[in-house]
């Protein structure tokens, strides 16, 4: 017999794990960009309802969220979890680490430049961000190419990365256009960039990763693959129609896009509910409250968009829908995943040393997560109401609440990292204390 750390064991899943410092640097950076995103929205609250895509604090807040939080978290999660799920090693850790050191400063420079309308900073930041995303895409593509065991997840990954390639090229073009003003239809390309970013890259990654992550978190059996493929087909069709609508300016194309999007969302919702119904875990907790809210935010926002196109009065509709998709759906989903995954990964890596892991329950700062969830939901409601009512004080209140929640989440994330660091640097006798408590999970 040998202890579970199994030094020298061939073919074990541990061989496929990157060092814990790699995913954690992405997650901790995401938690800091999360704080920055709400703080910048607070500073630019007066500009939100009139936002039409130009440089300024709102564009900076949008990209602090999409690149700094959403893409950053997706990169960390993909580097850590994909190799275990696909049973294929990611390879040497340095490319994944290098992607971070290019991407994180790139996002900081890009968003700083957007906030100050400084074209040079934006160009430098977009180049670095795209370089980081390119490394991520190449590593992920190589891993997905051999992922026969989870083909439906790989299919979502392939489609998301295809969207990312176009999205990144468009992003660089749009930034260059701030300096040169050479684009004949900037609004159309900006719309396409948004569609590919929200639904193509992040939306398809969310749908694909959820097929494995949610059953793993809930402790329920693997999901049927046929609905997953149907959801992917609907999602890709929806993105295709929406992209065509944004680019061509033909409003009629938004209807098939909406229909396909609602079908994809419905399939996703049904699969996630099936997973939760079959869950062995008795208490799904706050992470699942966030995950459920995110799913319903997606469906509600799509229906709101449809109502707007049918002529229902939806004040400031483009800004409201954009905010609900990015913050209400994607950000809420990512925060739910991160609040579950951070203690889980820390405990998993700690177990490699002694066979006596740090308990997930001991790593989780519940008051921090409660503060985050409460302030996040209240912040979303206040900002959305402020957009509809065109009331800057309400938007400021919502951004303040969101900022408070983001600080709570950052405290949770850094507490997990600190506890793991202490555990890994403790003497073996200090960390070998057996667990005494059996908590309900």
């Amino acid at each position: 017999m040998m202890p579970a750390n199994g030094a020298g064991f061939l073919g074990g899943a541990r061989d496929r794990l990157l060092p814990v410092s790699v995913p954690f640097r992405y997650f901790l950076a995401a938690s800091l960009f999360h704080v920055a995103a709400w703080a910048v929205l607070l500073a630019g609250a007066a500009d939100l309802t009139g936002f039409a895509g130009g440089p300024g604090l709102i564009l900076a807040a949008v990209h602090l969220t999409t690149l700094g939080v959403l893409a950053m978290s997706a990169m960390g999660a993909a580097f850590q979890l994909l190799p275990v799920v696909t049973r294929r090693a990611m390879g040497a850790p340095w490319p994944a680490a290098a992607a971070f050191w290019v991407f994180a400063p790139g996002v900081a420079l890009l968003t700083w430049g957007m906030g100050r309308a400084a074209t040079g900073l934006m160009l430098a930041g977009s180049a670095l961000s795209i370089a980081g995303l390119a490394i991520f895409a190449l590593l992920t593509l190589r891993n997905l190419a051999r992922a026969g065991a989870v083909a439906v997840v790989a299919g979502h990954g392939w489609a998301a990365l295809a969207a990312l390639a176009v999205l990144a090229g468009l992003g660089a073009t749009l930034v260059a256009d701030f300096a040169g003003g050479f684009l004949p239809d900037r609004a159309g390309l900006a719309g396409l960039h948004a569609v590919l970013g929200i639904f193509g890259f992040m939306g398809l990654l969310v749908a694909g990763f959820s097929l494995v992550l949610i059953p793993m978190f809930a402790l329920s059996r693997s999901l049927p693959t046929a609905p997953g493929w149907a959801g992917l087909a609907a999602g890709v069709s929806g993105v295709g129609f929406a992209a065509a609508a944004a680019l061509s300016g033909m409003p009629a194309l938004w209807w098939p896009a909406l229909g396909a999007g609602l079908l994809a969302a419905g399939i996703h919702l049904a699969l996630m509910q099936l997973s939760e119904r079959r869950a062995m875990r008795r208490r799904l907790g706050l992470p699942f409250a966030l995950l459920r809210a995110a799913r319903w935010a997606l469906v509600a926002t799509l229906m709101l968009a449809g109502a707007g196109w049918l002529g229902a009065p939806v004040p400031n509709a483009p800004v409201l829908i954009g905010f609900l998709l990015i913050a209400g759906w994607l950000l809420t989903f990512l925060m739910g995943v991160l609040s579950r995954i951070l203690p889980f990964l820390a405990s998993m890596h700690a177990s490699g040393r002694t066979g006596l892991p740090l308990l997930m329950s001991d790593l989780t700062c519940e008051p921090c997560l409660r503060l985050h969830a409460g302030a996040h939901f209240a912040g979303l409601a206040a900002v959305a109401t402020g957009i509809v009512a065109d009331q800057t004080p309400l938007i400021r209140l919502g951004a303040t609440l969101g900022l408070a929640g983001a600080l709570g989440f950052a405290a949770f994330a850094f507490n997990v990292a600190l506890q793991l660091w202490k555990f890994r640097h403790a003497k073996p006798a200090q960390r070998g204390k057996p667990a005494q408590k059996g908590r309900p999970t």
Partner: protein
Amino acid sequence: MKDDFPGRAWCENGQRHLDTRGLPPPDPMVAILWHVERGLSPLIVHMDREPVHLYPELGERNWTWELADPTPGQVRLVLRARP
């Protein structure tokens, strides 16, 4: 999943065995925790890879684990409830 688990289980020399080889993720973890939650200790699990995602869950439930005679492509894990 209330009354069923993925994989194949049997008893041998008074010990419970569970074979989760070939199952897609996260079914191996689900099958093992189904047995763990019913206190079926010791449990010998036959897997095709080391279940790193399982360890945090075992720790929460106060169970220990040992890898037994690992060979490429096959893992045998012995799980026990901590006294």
